């Protein structure tokens, strides 16, 4: 371990690269959990993950490219709710509004089961002093400005993340 300060708390360095609702959960869950354990946490938001730094979170579920995604109905008797509805890509590609439906169903199911919303988890991260770092290069590519993001976000590049990650016990790309 080549930690600069041996007395420093443990550190988690995450890269959040996906902006769909399902993939928005893992970085915010791990970041808030690590923060709650007293670790230092930094999340580097790059590519589609960058949208998770917007004040208004619009993350949706895309069943396309998620062929194994089980779909649950958030209403009805328990036996009905436990059914895994297979979601063939061909069907979804041809049904307008399918993403909205899938997003609504996932949000409602998560709510019913007691999972916090992405907004709540991000707020928990902010309260726990998690560093939220937006990728400057992605901002330039997609045309985002600093003011498009929440005020707690920092802006940085690959070197910023690597320097932070070099002293981290846990580094994950999500």
């Amino acid at each position: 371990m080549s930690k600069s300060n041996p007395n420093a708390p443990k550190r988690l360095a995450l890269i959040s690269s996906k902006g769909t609702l399902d993939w928005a959960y893992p970085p915010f869950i791990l970041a808030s959990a690590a923060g709650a354990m007293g670790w230092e946490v930094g999340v580097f938001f790059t590519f589609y993950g960058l949208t998770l730094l917007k004040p208004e979170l619009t993350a949706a579920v895309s069943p396309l490219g998620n062929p194994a995604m089980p779909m649950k109905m958030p209403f009805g008797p328990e036996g009905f709710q436990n059914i895994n509805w297979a979601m063939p890509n061909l069907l979804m590609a041809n049904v307008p509004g399918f993403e909205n439906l899938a997003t609504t169903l996932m949000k409602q199911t998560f709510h019913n089961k007691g999972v916090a919303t992405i907004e709540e988890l991000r707020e928990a991260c902010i309260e726990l002093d998690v560093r939220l770092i937006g990728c400057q290069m992605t901002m330039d590519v997609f045309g985002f400005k600093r003011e498009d993001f929440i005020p707690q976000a920092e802006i940085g590049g690959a070197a910023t993340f690597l320097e932070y990650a070099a002293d981290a016990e846990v580094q994950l790309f999500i």
Partner: protein
Amino acid sequence: MEDVEIIKEDLVLDCSGMLCPMPIVKTSKSMKELQSGQILKMISTDAGSPPDIAAWSRQTGNELLLSTTESGKYVFFLKKS
């Protein structure tokens, strides 16, 4: 392990109905309200809580005095370090 009857908590946190990671996020927040030596009683229905609270205790140094179940819920007594 001390007996559940003789542990006197200073604060109760009910995380019933919450799933990971909220029980440990709320636990960490409640612990900040306590003084060293005071005890938090945390109640949870999340089956992930027994291993998670044990890990949280090891990582933060706040002692887990007791991990048990009470009327179908998980109950933890944590002592602030």
